[in-house]
């Protein structure tokens, strides 16, 4: 070993340089507050290691970014850990670089000859924040997408160069592939490179200051960096890493109750979806709140002028702080700004907590994110078109939206509009929750219920033949007839082939076709309805395949069709014929009403409970 070191030293001089670095003199001895430099280097190394690992699995394009991050987070072993560390260490780094600057102000660390050191610290803070800003878009989830849109908009407000800056960073008019490739190049290439330059610059400057200090004050005792300062550095690094790891593994202990292990991942970015839950990272909430006080064209003042003036003031602090009065002013300004930022952050949090609209949006966003992950983890996996398509073709996600927009002006779903809101006007068409299920049919054929708002009460059929049949005939049924009616309900409901009624205990031994026809004839159904036969004179809707996917799609497409209500159709539009909804949307609506969508196996028990069979 000794021989090798000697050999190396003769050719490179590396051993000496390393020793001088390790045993460099620290005037006044090891101190906790000298651990900043080491800590920042440590954090950078952590980000480089985790970042490089993520880089190897990440693919920056609009159809692969969310998908690859999902894969890292939920499929790769320890992917969540690496991503979690990268995410929370980035937040820790933002705090650390800011504290670093504040500490320099407090201890007057910007005095001659250390002005450069102070500016380096400021530059480091700006670069670290830039890294965060660019990194936030990379998962291409709703959160990152909408935040980045607002940010590039703010950037575009800068005088003269603003619009050009926006175009260069976004890579064109619209957020697309190039926004990701560009943000990624900045995040993983340009800003880290700047940060390395700044860290090296900081190290060189520090060395020079310490040399000057030892020379100018020979009576001050100094101590070598190794081992005391090194130990202190290692301990602070471990402490910070411990906190980062703890948040990564147990985010719920820090108030992120809805998060699993690792960093959050919202649903895939959807440029056409209102994302009402858009909020910046917590350390930018103050700026978000600040902007609310600058309406209209004043926005530039809040977004560019004042923040620019503050950064400018900080840059001038070394001169202002030459006299003790200026130094005190610097400290007061810093405290004021820090206090202001905290106050703005709390105000933003408070406003959101009291904003019911935001709370709902945030909850919906969480549900959507969970659903996207569920679908992506499902048996079909993620198609080449990307995970967004999974959500767009998911009845569970799209159904409620479609229902609320197109159906809820007349119909209800379990009393609400599909999304949980209760419309102001009374319903004027049946409640479709559990449509064609045994329970729904049993209640429908109940003389006490058929004429209520829940069924035909609000429709043109309130005085029609069906209501009359139920309230007059069915009401008089004896026990035998009631049993026959129950059998009709079972058979009719089986036509729908609802997923919730596929459980073996709810299926009965089937009747022969003749017995079935006789039963339906006895009870009186086939007087008005077709059921496995064709007769154009029947007024009531065809019951063959009643409530099945095909029946529902045809019905929604055109309820006035000869098979259904013909000229008796109440106000229901012919959604397909009139071009209101396309085939795909009608299919999604039918699937959702039938409760037919993908659920992972562990959830299926709860679905059965949610839609009980009678």
């Amino acid at each position, binding site marked *: 070993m000794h021989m090798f070191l000697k050999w190396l030293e003769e050719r490179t001089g590396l051993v000496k340089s390393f020793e001088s670095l390790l045993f460099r003199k620290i005037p006044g001895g090891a101190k906790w507050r000298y651990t900043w430099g080491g800590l920042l280097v440590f954090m950078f190394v952590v980000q480089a290691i985790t970042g490089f690992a993520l880089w190897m699995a990440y693919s920056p394009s*609009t*159809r692969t970014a969310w998908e690859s991050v999902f894969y890292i987070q939920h499929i790769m072993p320890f992917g969540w850990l690496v991503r979690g560390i990268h995410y929370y260490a980035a937040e820790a780094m933002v705090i650390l670089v800011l504290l670093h600057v504040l500490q320099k102000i407090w201890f007057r660390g910007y005095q001659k000859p250390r002005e450069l050191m102070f500016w380096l610290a400021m530059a480091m803070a700006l670069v670290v924040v830039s890294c965060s800003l660019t990194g936030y878009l990379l998962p291409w989830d709703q959160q990152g997408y*909408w935040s980045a*849109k*607002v940010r590039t*908009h*703010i950037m*575009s*407000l800068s005088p003269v160069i603003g619009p*050009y800056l926006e*175009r*260069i960073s*976004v*890579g*064109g*008019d*619209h957020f*697309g*592939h*190039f926004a990701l*490739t560009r943000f990624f190049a900045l995040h993983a290439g340009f800003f880290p490179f700047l940060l390395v330059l700044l860290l090296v610059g900081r190290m060189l400057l520090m060395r020079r200051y310490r040399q000057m200090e030892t020379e100018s004050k020979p009576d001050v005792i100094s101590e070598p960096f190794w081992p005391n300062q090194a130990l202190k550095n290692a301990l602070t690094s471990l402490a910070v890493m411990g906190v980062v790891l703890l948040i990564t593994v147990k985010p719920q202990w820090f108030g992120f109750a809805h998060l699993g292990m690792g960093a959050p991942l919202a649903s895939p970015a959807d*440029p*056409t*979806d*209102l*994302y*009402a*839950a*858009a909020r910046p990272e917590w350390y930018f909430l103050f700026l978000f709140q600040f*902007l*609310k006080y*600058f*309406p*209209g*064209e004043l*926005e*530039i003042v809040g977004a560019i002028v004042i923040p620019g003036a503050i950064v400018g003031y900080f840059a001038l602090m070394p001169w202002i702080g030459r006299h003790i009065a200026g130094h005190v002013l610097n400290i007061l300004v810093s405290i004021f700004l820090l206090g202001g930022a905290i106050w703005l952050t709390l105000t933003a949090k408070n406003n959101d907590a009291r904003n019911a*609209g*935001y709370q709902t*949006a945030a909850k919906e966003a969480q549900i959507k994110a969970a659903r996207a992950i569920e679908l992506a983890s499902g048996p079909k996996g993620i198609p080449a078109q990307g995970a967004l398509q999974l959500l767009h073709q998911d009845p569970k996600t799209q159904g409620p939206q479609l229902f609320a*927009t197109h159906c809820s*002006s007349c119909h209800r779903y379990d009393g609400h509009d599909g999304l949980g809101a209760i419309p*102001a006007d009374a319903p004027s068409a049946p409640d479709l929750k559990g449509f064609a299920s045994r329970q729904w049919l049993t209640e429908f054929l109940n003389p006490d219920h058929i004429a209520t708002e829940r069924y035909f009460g609000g429709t043109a059929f309130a005085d029609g033949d069906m209501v009359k049949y139920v309230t007059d005939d069915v009401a008089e049924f004896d026990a035998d007839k009631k049993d026959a009616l129950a059998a009709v309900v079972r058979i009719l409901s089986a036509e729908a082939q609802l997923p919730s009624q596929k459980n073996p205990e709810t299926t009965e031994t089937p009747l022969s076709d003749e017995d079935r026809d006789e039963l339906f004839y006895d009870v009186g159904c086939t007087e008005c309805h077709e059921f496995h036969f064709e007769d154009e004179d029947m007024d009531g809707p065809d019951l063959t395949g009643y409530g099945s996917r095909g029946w529902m799609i045809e019905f929604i497409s055109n309820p006035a069709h000869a098979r259904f209500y013909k000229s008796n159709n109440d106000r229901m*539009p012919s959604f397909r014929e*009139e*071009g*209101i909804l396309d085939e795909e949307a009608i299919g999604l609506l039918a699937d959702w009403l039938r409760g037919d969508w993908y659920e992972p196996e562990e959830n299926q028990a709860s679905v059965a409970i949610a839609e009980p069979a009678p």
Partner: protein
Amino acid sequence: MSKDELQASGGSDRRGFMRGVLAMITGTLALLGPLVGGLAVVLEPLRQKKHGQAGGFIKVGQLASLPNNGLPKKYDILADRQDAWNRYPNVPVGSIYLRRTEDDQITAFNIICPHAGCFVQVDQQQKQYNCPCHNSQFKLDGSKSNADNPSPRGMDPLDVEIRNGDEIWVHYQSFKTGVADRIPNS
């Protein structure tokens, strides 16, 4: 070359100075290719591109799909979109609100909030538009309704035409956000 000659050419005299300048010029020339090429790629988005869609009307739906109740309804604008190396036929490129007040009276607004570019929502109960980002509120006619509305202008109206009796066509445009004037985005 003797030691004296070496020192003489080291930069103190005129010839040495010229060589220094030459070295810098040569070095810069050597870097010119990658530098200019690289800058051209980085600044490529600044090149203005022609858009086929600009100025045209787009069909957004059938007249029957819009109830005559004065309430806004969201429609997606479908068009072909080129995103870097991909071309997506017939995808949503934006959204609008349509509102029918009379049988043949339809107004259209771009869904984008003129303040910071978020998507404005409809509050059916309060009968107004709300922006979820910075609390801009607009009346159904698009004008600002709250005093502390941070938006510099009302919502952006779009031209609507009814063609062939039952088709709604809209002149879809988006405008620069954050300024009082309506400046169409290229």
